[in-house]
């Protein structure tokens, strides 16, 4: 084996998720051509903010945060972690106190909240959605019996 280029580019969580979906990850570890290890990564990623993101939202976000002059790694981290509080922004952005003012931090959080879709709330809820309509009816029936 010969490594031609060890770092040919960073990938966001969404890109890896899309790639695994293309390989048939949604069918489960036994259904598609996907290996069990890949399925584990897929399961991990659908519960992260990447689970609800779209490419269009990401492109929009990259355009909008140009004003903050973040590095590539910082933009990637913002997309992957979707910071919602100032303390998270300070973690992601190096020397945040010197580079961004308080208002800029607030405006970055506002941009994140506006442009990137909200993260998946509960993993259970999302699995049910993926199953389709028939199952939804079943779930409703179950919920009804549970309440009674």
């Amino acid at each position, binding site marked *: 084996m010969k490594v031609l280029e060890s770092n040919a580019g*960073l990938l966001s969580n969404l890109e890896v998720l899309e790639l695994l979906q293309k390989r048939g990850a949604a069918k489960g570890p036994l259904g598609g051509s996907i290996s069990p290890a890949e399925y584990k990564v897929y399961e991990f990623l659908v519960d992260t903010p990447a689970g609800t993101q779209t490419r269009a939202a990401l492109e929009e976000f990259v355009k909008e945060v140009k004003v903050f002059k973040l590095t590539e790694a910082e933009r990637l981290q913002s997309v992957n972690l979707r910071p919602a509080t100032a303390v998270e922004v300070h973690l992601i952005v190096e020397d945040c106190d010197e580079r961004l003012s308080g208002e800029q931090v607030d405006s970055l959080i506002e941009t994140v909240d506006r442009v990137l879709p909200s993260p998946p709330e509960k993993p259970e809820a999302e699995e049910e959605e993926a199953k389709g309509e028939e199952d939804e009816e079943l779930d409703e029936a179950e919920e009804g019996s549970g309440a009674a």
Partner: protein
Amino acid sequence: MFVLTKVKHELRIAPQKLSLPLLDAITSEIQNLFFDKVLKDMGLCITLYDVRAVEGGFVFPGDGAPRFTVDFQLVMFRPFIGEVLTGKLKKCDKTGLYISLQFFEDIHIPEHLLQQPSVFDEEEKLWIWNFNGNDMFMDLDEEVRFRVVQVKYPTIPIEQDKGAKPFAPMEITGDINADGLGLVSWW
């Protein structure tokens, strides 16, 4: 978290796979060889990104299989130093915390990189961060945010002690001693 790595490798395609389209045969061979394996200094291989070029197809005398030189890109799990990741707390012991990312388990946060002052509760077997007089427990299965400080690729030991922990080809050391790090529910 994930990076692309360009690799060139000579693959031997077994004759029974030749009924498949060539690209499918190559993909399945790459899957067997690389997926879920740690390549030294490259990280953990997750999946195949694309196949860029296929050359050759020579059959050597005495061998019933063609060999192709394939140029492809792999998706590797290799966090950069300083990257912030979120995982689940899997285990606590005196040496620190063990974090799991579901697909990757060998993440350790040593005692000296926990919030100060933190103490280990022998009875509960949990770490406690003493914050302004409040005891903050680090419960198992809680989400933990940590910063990567080191990624190690230990060499395979020739001889291993009986009680030693299982060998891990890739180990990540994390740090939670900063504002915003530690249990996600704290912040």
